[in-house]
């Protein structure tokens, strides 16, 4: 093939830009024009680089399917046809097929390297071992520049960074033949916070698709939900039935569930609350009796408070067996029989301590505590003054521990609200 500038060298394999083929003539072996190339078809599957399955061409006013064996050449500016017959049946999509220009070009894709959303401004094809395959996507702005400049100038624009197709996944919910799904196992490789960032950066339909993909794993779905910001949480719960919503809320941490219930439509709050599993329902109700801008509203009702006569080994065992969220188990509290909290010890220090020592010896006394009605400012100040990542919330008589405030919940509240969140772009936007 003549080395024309549209076929750029990427390594040693020439790469063909999709836009240099779409809309160009389909020619017969003699060079006479048969029709126009409308689109290219792939069948994505397990391979990292899906091969082209065929070409959609407009011939004599009809959209026809031309299989790859009848495509002689793919060149920038024209596609060569070989063979004697053309199948005149109108092109119809088959299950599992994607059209490159119609379904993928200029739409969002998930880039799993780094968990970002990118836009497929250009799709790159390459001839590998005699088969045309889709090898990558160009998310940069260069393809647009290339198209805007008139012919000669456009060809001189250098290609941008190509993202390998193996690292990305397209959104396919808008494709009519809905057999395709974002494979769950690819998404599961990302951290729930990254998945949540993707959902926040994506449009509503794309977000729905991601959530549905992680829906196979209820735990992961709940984790992703917890990481979403409140607006998106509400957006995605709105369309679910009460039972489904209760199921998601049931697997979230109680303080996050309480926050989310308060944000739902008023008519749905009580029904969904009533459908929560019993222990979760009790905890959420009790959390709802505190204003969200106070320590009581921030706290988690799950924590570990053990008698100070227990040994370090017993404490570690209790941590292993506990169902409470991990961030609340970072610090274990010790108490005496009449209820007062006497000390605290971090999980790390427990691991390093002598296994048979009683907690009363290894734990640090004089625990910095807060009260349920303290506002944000007082709570944050206490925790930062005493370097406490987990602060116990005590009742007025300093006898009962009501819950713990963990530093990750406090971090979220420190972001400024107001007209525009100044640091607002999520990590998932390029």
């Amino acid at each position, binding site marked *: 093939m003549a080395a024309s500038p549209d076929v750029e060298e990427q390594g040693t394999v020439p790469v063909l830009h999709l836009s240099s083929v779409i809309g160009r003539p389909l020619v017969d072996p003699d060079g006479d024009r048969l029709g126009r190339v409308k689109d290219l078809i792939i069948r994505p599957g397990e391979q990292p680089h899906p091969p082209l399955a065929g070409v959609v061409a407009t011939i004599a006013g009809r959209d026809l399917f031309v299989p790859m064996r009848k495509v002689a050449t793919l060149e920038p500016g024209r596609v060569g046809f070989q063979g004697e017959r053309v199948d005149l049946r109108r092109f119809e999509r088959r299950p599992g097929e994607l059209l490159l220009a119609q379904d993928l070009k200029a739409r969002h894709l998930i880039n799993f390297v780094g968990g970002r959303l990118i836009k497929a401004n250009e799709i790159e094809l390459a001839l590998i071992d005699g088969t045309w395959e889709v090898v990558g996507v160009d998310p940069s702005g260069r393809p647009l520049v290339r198209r805007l400049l008139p012919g000669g100038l456009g060809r001189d624009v250098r290609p941008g960074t190509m993202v390998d197709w193996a690292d990305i996944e397209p959104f396919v919910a808008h494709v009519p033949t809905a057999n395709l799904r974002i494979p769950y196992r690819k998404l599961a490789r990302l951290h729930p916070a990254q998945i949540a960032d993707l959902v926040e950066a994506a449009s509503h339909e794309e977000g729905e698709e991601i959530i549905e993909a992680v829906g196979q794993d209820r735990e992961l779905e709940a984790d992703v939900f917890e990481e979403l910001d409140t607006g998106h949480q509400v957006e995605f719960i709105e369309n679910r039935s009460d039972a489904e919503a209760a199921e998601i809320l049931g697997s979230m941490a109680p303080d996050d569930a*309480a926050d989310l219930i*308060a944000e739902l439509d*008023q008519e749905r709050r*009580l029904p969904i609350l009533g459908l929560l599993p019993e222990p979760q329902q009790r905890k959420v109700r009790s959390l709802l009796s505190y204003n969200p801008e106070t320590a009581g509203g921030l706290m988690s009702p799950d924590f570990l408070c053990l008698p100070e006569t227990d040994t370090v080994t017993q404490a570690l065992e209790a941590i292993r067996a506990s169902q409470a969220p991990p961030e609340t188990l970072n610090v274990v509290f010790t108490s005496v029989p009449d209820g007062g909290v006497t000390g605290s010890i971090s999980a790390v220090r427990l691991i390093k301590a002598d296994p048979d020592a009683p907690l009363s010896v290894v734990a640090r006394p004089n625990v910095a505590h807060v009260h349920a009605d303290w*506002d944000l400012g007082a709570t944050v100040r206490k925790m930062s003054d005493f370097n406490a990542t987990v602060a116990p919330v005590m009742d007025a008589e300093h006898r009962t521990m009501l819950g713990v405030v963990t530093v990750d919940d406090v971090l979220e509240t420190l972001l400024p609200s*107001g007209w525009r969140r100044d640091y607002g772009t999520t990590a998932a936007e390029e």
Partner: protein
Amino acid sequence: MTDAHEPEPATAVLDEAHTGDIQGAFGTIRMHDTSSRRTWTARLLTLLAIMGPGLIVMIGDNDAGGVATYAQAGQDYGLTLLWTLPLLIPVLVVNQEMVVRLGAVTGVGHARLINERFGKFWGAFSVGDLFLLNFLTIATEFIGVGLALGYFGVSRYLSVPIAAVALVVMTATGSFRRWERFMFVFIAVNFLVIPLAVLSHPSPQAFLHGFVVPGVHGGFDSTSVLLIIAIVGTTVAPWQLFFQQSNIVDKRITPRWINYERVDTVIGSIITVFAASLLMAVTASAFTGTPLFGRFTNAGAVAQGLGHVVGHASGAIFAIILLNASIIGAASVTLATSYAFGDAFGARHSLHRSWREAKFFYGAFTAMVVLAAGIVLIPRAPLGLITTGVQALAGVLLPSATVFLLLLCNDRAVLGPWVNRPWLNAVAVVIVSILLMMSLVLMTTTVFPRVDVNTLAEVLGIVLLVVFAGGGVVMVRARKRAPATPPVSAEVRANWRMPPLALLERPVWSRGKTVAMYALRIYLVVAVLMLLVKAIQLG
């Protein structure tokens, strides 16, 4: 780390720290600042940092509609309507103080509270009133811009579109802190009214006389009642309720700082009324005895008139004040609309979000601005009449907004130990009744022009007094019979905040309450229609 026992002085430095500090234009209160203020300096610095919501809301009163209405009152009735203004200070303070309490104790916006405590229907009605009024108010701000720049020779067809575009761009790209600081610049420009007053040489005796003695030049008739309602409506506007509450929530002002916020509100009211009275005095003293007396058309004509009668400087300063007022008004009303939108429809639809995320809100907002600008640009539109009409509309719709406010402030689930004291309820009921009475007078005289306003007012006044006396007796008896609520300690009160449980479900209204609310609404709709009729008659 600071020593936990040392009281931390509030800094007065404009600090860019982005924690949950209370960021005021004049200072910052650190979020962890919990010490009580020992010295007066510390208290003053704290006040300066908290100052903002109250002041801005009050100065936002002196928008283009306000300037025009006060100028009209002076030009048409001399100094005889001055007494209405000091009477508005208690109204302002009572209303806004209730809003301050709601915002600080619940941490939730006004529209959302109405929505969740009274149901979507009433929420929609309240917010619908607000949007209608805000839309018309933005139109009056554009009128102001057009007239103000018209004095300097700029065509209306140039200044209004530019202002519209500037407004949309400013709100789409703005930052709250920057906007608040800008507002204080505009507030400072407001004080140009003082040199303006000096230039017009008002007589101090007449000024005091007008302040103290109620009456109207030419007697009470439906037109003067209309103007009085307009004065009330421009000073105590419904958007202020929504704005100040959301602003307080945004600034994270908690019950700990309520007293400072109250002071801020009172100071704001006094400054507003002071500026308004000066404006009235300016046009009164400038036009009394001239052929222009009693012939108010619009604010632009006032500027021209002042230019001829007093001097070019006077006219120019008035035009600048008008322009400044329009900017303040447009910005405040815009933000109030955004807050209410966000509250009513969920936070995805407000200025907290970027264009991409809140397309519907920004689209609706832009449409509103474009439509408002369009109305102003219609050739031969009676701009002065539109302005007066809008302010009067605000005055008529005010009772309904106040009624909701009162009901919320008596709701124990929402405010707990912060509910209204009985005397405050009594004062608020008196205010609402007087407002309703005035709108009833306006309605009746519009439908039956031959009814004498004075006798009507007297009759209604007597009815009102009887109702009050009866109501007072009933209330005193009820209190004697009701079990005494246990006194709440100041400590508990200072720490009480509304729990989300209060909003879990809507309280059910008694039948009587439902009937009364519907009656009020129907009455108000009829009153608005009558107002339209009256405006068309005058136009």
